[in-house]
């Protein structure tokens, strides 16, 4: 894949054909949303950029602009899997796949193929199963939801007294 097309993917979130990713999902790795919540919250610390509710507003990362709202995202399953696995080169979205850029599953590219300013950032490393779990969490508990609620916050942190939940009281 050319960098031009890759950038287009990054900007427009076009759906791509990702044979390896699709194959893994079609192999029957049913995602577990509960485990996916844990991955989002305290394995990948996704909320640092996306906000705990995935609203793109309440993140705590000061070294990057606020990440896109996942609640408003319309990405399909395959694209979510790919972006989590491979990141979005040239943006702060890091890659999380164990084999990302070491086999040809990420845009057919290796890290050495990128110019320094576009080199994908490395995030926490997830198994493919956990990427599937995370996608399941996003699709069942984040995407398409409106404003976050106290109940959602208390459930996310497993603690009704968590600091971020105070705004709902």
């Amino acid at each position, binding site marked *: 894949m050319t960098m031009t097309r890759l950038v287009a993917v990054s900007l427009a979130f076009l759906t791509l054909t990702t044979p390896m990713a699709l194959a893994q999902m079609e192999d029957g790795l049913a995602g577990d949303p509960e485990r996916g919540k844990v991955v989002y919250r*305290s394995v990948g*610390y996704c909320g*640092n950029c996306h906000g705990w509710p995935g609203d793109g*507003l*309440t993140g*705590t990362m*000061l*070294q*990057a*602009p*606020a990440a896109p709202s996942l609640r408003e995202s319309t990405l399909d399953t395959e694209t979510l899997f790919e972006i989590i696995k491979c990141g979005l080169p040239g943006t702060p979205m890091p890659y999380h796949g164990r084999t990302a850029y070491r086999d040809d599953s990420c845009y057919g590219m290796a890290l050495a193929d990128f110019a320094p300013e576009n080199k994908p950032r*490395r995030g926490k490393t997830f198994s493919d199963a956990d990427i599937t779990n995370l996608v399941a969490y996003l699709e069942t508990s984040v995407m398409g939801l409106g404003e976050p609620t106290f109940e959602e916050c208390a459930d996310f*942190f497993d*603690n009704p007294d*968590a*600091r*971020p939940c*105070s*705004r709902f009281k």
Partner: protein
Amino acid sequence: MKMKHCVAGLTALTAAGLASGSIAGEVTAERLLAAGTEAEAGNWLMVHKTFDSNRFSTLNEINADNVSGLRLITAATLGGTEPAGFGVGSMEATPLADDGFLYVSDPWGTPYKFDMNDGKSLKPVWVCDTGIDKDPSNGVILANRGLALSGNNVVTVLNDGRVVACDSETGDVVWDVQAATDQGEGFSNSPQAIGDKIIIGQSFGDWATRGWIAALDPDNGDELWRFYTVPEPGQPGSETWLCEETGNPDCWKTGGGAAWVAGSFDPESNTLFWGTGNPVPMYDPEYRPGDNLYTNSTLALDADTGELKWHFQYTPGDYMDYDEVGIQLLIDKEINGEERKVLAHFGRNGIFYTLDRTNGAYINSATYVSNLNWTEGIDPKTGKPMEYDPSASLQTYAIGAIDRAGATATTCPNIQGGTNFFPTAYNPELGLAYAVGIEGCSDLSVRSVDPDDVVAGEIFIGGSGVNSGAQTGAINAVDVATGEVSATRPTTYPMYSGVLATPDLMWTAHTDGTVAAYDATTLEEKWSMNVGTSFQAPPIAFTAGGKEYIAIVGGGIGIAGMGYAELNSIQPANMLWVFGLD
């Protein structure tokens, strides 16, 4: 105790002719006043060493001629690596030393005492249990910049808004007060003991709160006075908050101006000098039009009443996060043939300023970073940036405005400085002031937030300021008499640690784990050693058993990685390190 009594006590102390070279026990007002004298040369009784914040130690057993033989003597582990909402905190505390005992704090503000008197090891004496809730959902940047020794107590300030005094012998809690009571308020700095008061500063302005400085009774923590750094409507300075223009008349209530680094104290005039933080939200001036007093300022406060004597605002109507909480160096110096009582300050905005500390009048300034583009220069009469328009509700500096319509800008230095909370120092024997900091730029943009969505206790920045290209660092020495940068030493990585000055050396430490000593005049490296923890705190010099040592705390990288993979791989392991000669 009133200050005049302290002065009388100091006189008596001096008359007694204490010549032991080290005195210990209760840390009285007299001892704090004498912190820079020969009697206390082996001790480091307050975070900035002396009330003038010079961080200059007269100890000279370790010097430029023998520092090449310096080695690691011992180390001790500290706790506090539990994360909060922004991750694991950084070790930013200056250790305190008294009679061979060291007092340090971790990022959660927990105080520790160690005994170094055998010259070989740091024996844990106690850990004071403050009962802090290490809530991982608490969305604050964890930091604690040190402790205060007050009488027989060791005082700490906590991110939950409490101030806790621990018994210096036993580590038991003596008193515990909820000094900050409004939602979102708390502390990341260090308390400042001045004998008859403990001065504290509310630190979480960027979390949609209003900054304040207060004095507490050292016997019980009762509040004696409070000064709000953002005035309420009708108070002097409130005319610089044009909240009515925005449709949100309460914009001042979340206006920031946090006081998140301990200030200086001039006993002669009984004046406190504290720096204040940025207006909030930092990147969206349309939320809070006006100059936004008393943000980005040096404040001179009457120590007995908290009344404002004068202020000097460095960057009015800021949108570049150039807060000025950093160190206020009090220096008596001849400038242009006139003996001046100077307040010198390395601005986060990249400019070194000298003011007359008796009235806040501007004296001189010099750019100390290699790349500064946000202003064409400083008006030599007013000390304000050339572009400053006192009649404008929104300032436009040389980089252009950023706004809600989409205008962006790139500002140099980096939004984190210049220098920042990283303590600076002054060598009175050489007339040189030192700072370490960052060399680079930041890309700025605005993202407006509806006032209804602003919640005290949640970070509120109104946009973004991200690194623009590579960030490096520098060590700078400035000749205070001439106002000129006398030496510069570029560094590979941005510097976060701060400075210690000894007679012929300048000490600092790097984010990659290197502790180093440089020639005090040329900044030529004289010694260095990499121990692997990231350094975001300055070293101190102290004695134990009559021998000089250098101590410093290190830990994880926190938010200081600045895009360097090798720095971001440094794991949190909080340590106290001690170096010495064989």
